């Protein structure tokens, strides 16, 4: 062996190493070892010659779609039972439900519209309709439907945008005070017969809250006299607006161009609310849903909460839940809001969609009510806007004679509709942010003024659109 052989061998080894490195840099694992996406392109579901309709609903609870069952027996129909009924009557129509949660609904419908996947039928919180109508998302209802809306509904404020009817009113809501009768009795807040005494005025609310609130040794509230829910506009802003209206105040100007809530009446109302916090009868951690587990004695709620409270409280619901009108400052009032249904402009089956809505919302059954009215009143636990549904004896048990609903219905005539304004959710969110800041110490006047100046910017931008 000589030096040359050693060098040659060393060179070969180095080349081997180089080849090895190059091979490993250049090669990689076979993708074939991985699961591949080899599904064929899925064709859209076809239904032969059937007309396919998609109804975008915000109902996410099972009972809302599939009905209320007791011991396996259907007690109240869900939405799908009505759809099945229609499809049986009209075999050429196939209707499916696209469930979109409330929080996503406004943006989602617009998004679906933008990508040509719009549902045929929408069901929206009225203020959302303002931008939809402006952007051409909504189909103009047929004349007969417009005429029907004008004639047969309790409140049309939600469905009218810029003077035009854009759909069919669905539910109409306002706010009432719920109070826990058992907690009231335990605190000695009773009438001459020993029954829980419902608060009538804001002062009554404060006095009851004082008696009921309990704290632990560290000062933490374990029983709330009154409950809000931070971050939820209907549990923060809507109670403020209901009280503001009862104090003779206004939310926005009549032409929706200026905020009005920061005047003296607004300051007085928010100061009263903040007093509950200052006096320790509530705090920013309170939650309206604590009402169901006896941790909160009072809260402002809308009619639809009945279903949830019944579900959570079971048999305690009828014994403990009391409902009364909003404790007013100067006159009874409450915030009113509504929903309406209609047909999307991009629907390929507008006629079929409107036909279904006629059957669903106008067609009066032998009971004297409409199907939509029955669904809203009996299953969804909302207040139907159509007059026949509201006054019919068929739904008396769940509406005017119902201890939970009756105060809401009684207040409707004195309630103030929420304005149909562009960017309504953003305006509410802006106001909510400042109300919550006042809860935890911000000067009330300053908070409302800050909210007003920001809302003004939003309203100004609306006017430019």
């Amino acid at each position: 062996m000589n030096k040359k052989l050693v060098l040659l061998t060393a060179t070969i080894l180095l080349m081997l190493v180089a080849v090895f490195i190059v091979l490993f840099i250049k090669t990689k694992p076979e993708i074939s070892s991985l699961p591949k996406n080899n599904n064929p392109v899925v064709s859209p579901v076809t239904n032969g010659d059937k007309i396919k309709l998609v109804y975008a609903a915000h109902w996410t609870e099972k009972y809302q779609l599939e009905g209320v069952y007791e011991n396996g027996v259907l007690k109240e129909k869900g939405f799908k039972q009505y759809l099945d009924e229609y499809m049986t009557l009209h075999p050429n129509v196939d209707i499916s439900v696209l469930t979109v949660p409330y929080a996503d609904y406004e943006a989602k419908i617009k998004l679906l519209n933008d990508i040509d996947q719009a549902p045929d039928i929408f069901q929206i919180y009225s203020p959302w309709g303002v931008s939809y109508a402006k952007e051409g998302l909504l189909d103009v209802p047929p004349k007969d439907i417009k005429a029907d809306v004008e004639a047969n509904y309790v409140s049309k404020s939600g469905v009218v945008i810029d003077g035009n009817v854009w759909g069919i009113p669905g539910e109409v809501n306002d706010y009432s005070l719920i109070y826990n009768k058992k907690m009231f009795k335990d605190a000695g807040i009773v009438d001459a017969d020993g029954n829980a005494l419902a608060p009538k005025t804001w002062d009554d609310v404060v006095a009851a809250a004082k008696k009921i609130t309990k704290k632990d040794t560290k000062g933490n509230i374990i029983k709330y006299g009154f409950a809000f829910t931070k971050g939820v506009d209907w549990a923060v802003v809507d109670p403020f607006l209901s009280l503001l209206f009862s104090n003779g105040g206004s939310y926005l100007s009549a032409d929706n161009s200026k905020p009005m809530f920061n005047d003296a009446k607004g300051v007085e109302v928010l100061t009263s609310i903040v007093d509950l916090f200052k006096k320790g009868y509530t705090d920013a951690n309170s939650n309206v849903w604590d009402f169901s587990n006896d941790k909160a004695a009072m809260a402002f709620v809308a009619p639809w909460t009945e279903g949830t409270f019944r579900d959570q409280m079971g048999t305690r619901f009828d014994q403990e839940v009391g409902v009364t009108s909003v404790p007013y400052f100067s006159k009874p009032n409450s915030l009113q809001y509504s929903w309406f249904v209609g047909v999307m402009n991009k629907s390929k089956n507008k006629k079929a969609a409107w036909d279904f809505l006629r059957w669903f919302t106008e067609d009066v059954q032998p009971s004297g009510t409409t199907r939509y009215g029955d669904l809203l009143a009996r299953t969804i636990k909302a207040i139907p806007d159509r007059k026949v549904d509201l006054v019919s004896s068929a739904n008396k048990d769940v509406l005017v004679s119902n201890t939970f609903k009756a105060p809401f219905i009684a207040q409707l005539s004195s309630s103030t509709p929420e304005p149909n304004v562009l960017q309504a959710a953003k305006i509410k969110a802006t106001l909510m942010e400042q109300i919550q800041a006042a809860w935890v110490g911000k000067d009330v006047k300053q908070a409302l003024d800050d909210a007003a100046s920001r809302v003004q910017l939003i309203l100004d931008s609306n006017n430019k659109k």
Partner: protein
Amino acid sequence: MEKFKINYNSLAVKIGFFGVILIFLSLLIFSSVSLISQRNEFYNDIVTRGKIFSEFSAQSIYQDYITFYAQPDEQDFQFFKDRLEAKFATNKDIINASLISVNGRILFDSNELSSGRYTGDVVRSVSDAASLNALTNEESSYHESDFMGQKVLEYFVPIKEISGGHVLVMRYIFSFDSLNNQLFGAYREIAMSFLAVFIIMIFLCIPFYLNLSKPIAMLNDLAMKVSAGDFSVKADIKSGKDEMSDLAKNFNSMVETLRISKEETNDSHQKEIDDFKEKINRLVADNTRISRELVESGQAIVALKDKNTDLEKLNKIMIDRELRIIESKDVVNNKKNGKSKV
């Protein structure tokens, strides 16, 4: 100081050299197997990380899109960007995310966020067949593809509707850069291992070379001295129990045996030489005597020589006479028998 010089013909060098080759090849094979295994592991890591990230973030990004991106407020848009960036920070492989409709419309693309919210003025669509196929899948799926000139992993997560089905899909694109970085790290580790082994081998080989080669060289020198007749040499034996110690002991033993044998041989040879000398002396004496006798017999030889000459002459005369007698007899006989030869 004596210069360290490798003798490539040395046995130690040969053994060490082939040892190094064996170790080197073993390391190479081990490294190959290790890297193949690691490469697959790294690849699967990327896929797994991508899958977990995609599945866990899809609904959240979609929700952010609905809540913030879809709002006209610039603050909301910035909030959406910030939240997306925060999510991206949790996965080192992701390079793009987009929300796409089932029919291929791109609603937002993370690469475009720096230029502001997409206003929808220009319809952007997915066009490649594999992606369009993936968009319709009810379950998450992924495939490899090219993205801006590099091989990437595309992951599709359908945003399931509460009522079933889907109309939107989150598409994620993951880079393989981290795979290469990890492999580079592995290469570096292996290279460092090679270097370490090489250095260790050098440090092991030098004592080995010295321990093996030096005693052999020493024994060689001693053997040369022995061959030159110097039997006084002796290998320095360390108190070891290895082969070299045995060899040295045996060498010393051999030299001792040779020395004794030589001494014995030397004694035997002296005697033989003495005997031989005596024999030679005797032979010389004999020779001298014989020579003297030969000189003395020389004169007799001359006399004999003369006598021999005379005898030879007489012999020739006698032979000729005999030959003529024989010839005469033959003539007589032929005549008797009536035969003639002619």
